[in-house]
C-alpha cells in the first residue's frame, strides 16, 4: 500500500461513494437517514457555525461505517472533519479508475441531452474553470443567468443520471 494513502482526502472518498450511488437510491437513502439522525443530535449553535463541514464530516463517518458493515472496502483513514472542497488529487482518481471512467461516460451522455445554453455554461464553468464573471462575458449572458443555468443544468443532470443507471 502506498504511504500516501493514509493522507488521502476522505472528502474525495465520500464523493466517489455518493457518485456511484446516484442510481442506487436504497444505499443513498440509508446513508441519508443515518446522517440526518446524527445531524439532529448536533446543537444548532455548533451546526450553524460551519454547516457544510459538519454535514460532510458526519457523512464521511457514516460512509466509513456503512462500508465496514458491508465489508466492501477497507478503510484506511480517519479524521473529524471532511474537507469542504472537491478532491482532485491524482491518487484519489487512480483509486477508483474504473468507476471514474464509467461516471465520466455517463456524465458525458447526460450532458448531450441538455439544452445548448446549459451545456455551454457547464463547460465554461466546470470544464474550463472560468469564474462566473468570465463565463458571462464568454457566453454573452449575465452573471445572474450563468448562475441560474448552473443550478438548472446540475439538477437536470441529476435527474438524467438517476433515470439511466
Amino acid at each position, binding site marked *: 500500500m502506498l504511504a500516501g494513502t493514509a493522507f488521502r482526502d476522505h472528502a474525495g472518498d*465520500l464523493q466517489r461513494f*455518493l457518485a456511484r450511488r446516484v442510481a442506487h437510491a436504497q444505499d443513498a437513502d440509508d446513508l441519508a437517514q443515518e446522517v440526518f439522525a446524527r445531524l439532529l443530535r448536533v446543537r444548532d449553535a455548533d451546526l450553524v457555525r460551519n454547516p457544510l463541514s459538519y454535514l460532510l464530516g458526519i457523512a464521511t463517518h457514516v460512509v466509513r461505517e456503512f462500508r465496514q458493515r458491508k465489508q466492501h472496502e477497507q478503510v484506511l483513514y480517519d479524521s473529524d472533519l471532511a474537507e469542504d472542497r472537491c478532491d482532485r488529487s491524482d491518487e484519489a482518481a487512480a483509486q477508483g479508475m474504473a468507476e471514474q471512467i464509467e461516471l*465520466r461516460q455517463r456524465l458525458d451522455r447526460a450532458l448531450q441531452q441538455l439544452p445548448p445554453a446549459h451545456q455551454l455554461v457547464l463547460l465554461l464553468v466546470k470544464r474550463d474553470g472560468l469564474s462566473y464573471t468570465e463565463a458571462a462575458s464568454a457566453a454573452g449572458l449575465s452573471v445572474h443567468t450563468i448562475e441560474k443555468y448552473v443550478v438548472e443544468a446540475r439538477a437536470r443532470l441529476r435527474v438524467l443520471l438517476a433515470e439511466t443507471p
Partner: protein
Amino acid sequence: MALSDSKTRELEALYAVEASGWVETMRHASPGDEMRFVAWLKESPRNVRDFLLMRSLDCALETLDTERLHSLEALIAKVDQRVSPLTLRPAPGAAPARSRRVRWAALAAGILVAVVGALFWYAHPGFQGFHEFETATGEQRTFELEDGSVVSLNTQSRVAIRLAAHVREVRLLRGEALFHVAHDPSRPFLVSTDDAVVQAVGTQFDVYRRDDGTVVAVLEGRVNVTTALPAPAASGSAAAPVAGRGAPRAAAVRSLGASQEAQVSHEGSVSIREVNNVNDTVAWRERRLIFRDQTLEQIVGEFNRYRAHPIRLEGSGVSERVYSGVFDADDADSLLQVLARDPALAVEREGEATLVRLR
C-alpha cells in the same frame, strides 16, 4: 406514461433544483444562508440525501469532457440563436391576430422555479377552508397539495385552494398557474376564474387569467371547460369569438384534450385551437418567454409581468411590430438589447422606466 410516474419525476426534478440551488448558495454562504441551510437539512433525510448527491455530482462535473470534444463556438452559435429574434416581419396594416398568446412551453425535464421545500405548505389559512397562495412580481413558486397534486404559480399570481371530501376547488384570483392533478375520480379538481370553470380528474393543464379572458391549455389528459356565465345575446362584432370558431351560447361545456387550448372571453365565447408546440406551453416554469410572431405590445406585456419597473411603448407604430424569439424572463435587458439593434427603434431610459419608441 402513468400519471404517478410523471408526477414522481416532476417532484424529483423539483427536489433536484432545490438541492442544486443549495450547492450554489453554500459556495459563498452568509450566516443567514447557513442558518436556512441547517433548517432545510433538518426538514428531512431526503434533503440530506439530495444535497450530498448533488454536491458529489458537482465535484464530478470537474472531470466533464476532459478530452475537450465539445466545441464552445458551436454551442455559443446555438445559444445566440435562441436569444435573438428569429424573424422580424413588417407590421401588418391591420391589428395582428389576437389569438396568439405568449406560448408557455412544456419542458417536463426542466423545471426552474423557486421551490418550496415543505410538502404541505399553507400560506394564509383563509375563509371557509380556503388557503391562499401568492407570488410577487418576478417570483414563481411550486407546491404540493395534500392530495398529491402539484401547483406551480407564475409571477404575480394568486390562488385560493380548498380540499374538501367531495371536491378539490381552486380559485385562480390572479395570474397564471399550472396544475398537475393527482388522479382521484371521487373528488373532481375544479379551477375557476370569473370566465370559466375547468374540471379535471387527473391531468396536467395551465390556466392563465388575462385582462381579456381566460386561457386554458392542456398538456396531458382531458379537461372540461364550462363558461362561468350564460353568454349575453349576440351583441355585434365586439363579442365575436376571437378565432371565429364556435359561437358563444349559454354556459357551454367544452371538452379539451392534450395539445388543445381554449380561450374564454369575458362574454362567454369559447374558441378552441390546436397547439402545435405543446412544449412551449409552460416555458415559464423555466422562466423562459417564447414568442412566435407576436406584437411588441404582447411581448412587452409578458416581460412586464416579471418586472417591478415596466417597459413602456410610446408613440404610434411601435406596439404593432411583430417579433419572434426566446428570452430569459429574468433578463429583460436581453429584450432591450435586441430592440436597440433594430434601426427603426429607439430605447431610452428615464429614471427607472424604460421607453421604446420609433426613431
